[in-house]
């Protein structure tokens, strides 16, 4: 079973590195759309990480809330950010 342990280690190291690399790319790219997409990808890899850490409840919550809903919120905000303003603003 040494091969299994080796495989497990390789997988965990690959996953951990991918998480760190995705986080770095996500936060330091100038392209906002790329940031959001990479963040959703990060969330999906986190879901796999939670499964590796034997936390299925957390994995489900992360997939639905962390990756899914946060991704939708980010995309919606990005769209409104980059659209020219229309309509009046409330007086402060």
């Amino acid at each position, binding site marked *: 079973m040494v091969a299994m342990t080796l495989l497990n280690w390789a997988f965990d190291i690959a996953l951990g590195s991918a998480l760190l690399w995705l986080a770095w790319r996500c936060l330091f790219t100038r392209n906002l759309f790329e940031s959001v997409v990479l963040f959703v990808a990060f969330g999906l890899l986190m879901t796999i990480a939670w499964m590796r*850490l034997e936390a299925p409840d957390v994995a489900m919550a992360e997939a639905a809330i962390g990756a899914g809903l946060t991704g939708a919120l980010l995309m919606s905000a990005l769209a409104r950010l980059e659209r020219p303003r229309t309509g009046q603003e409330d007086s402060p």
Partner: protein
Amino acid sequence: MTPAQLYALVGIGLFFVGLYALGVRRHLLPRILALNIMGSGVFVVLVALARRSSEVDPVPHAMVITGIVVAVSATALALRLMLRVAHATGSAQLTDTGDD
């Protein structure tokens, strides 16, 4: 090194990547993402350390689920704030050094 320790190190790395981005990036959207990633780092450390015994400890799992829900609430609120700032000042960048 156990797998739990490996993931705990990944969590620490995520936390500091997010913190560095928070110090460096001037645009509000990456800053919100940085906060989320810092939070995720903390969650990973919590859950990784929960796996130290052969049977997992369920209490950190519950805490992290709570944390994820609170994080999405905060993110939604922060995004609204960002849009408000952008529409009030014309840009979503913090401009103290104009460095972004």
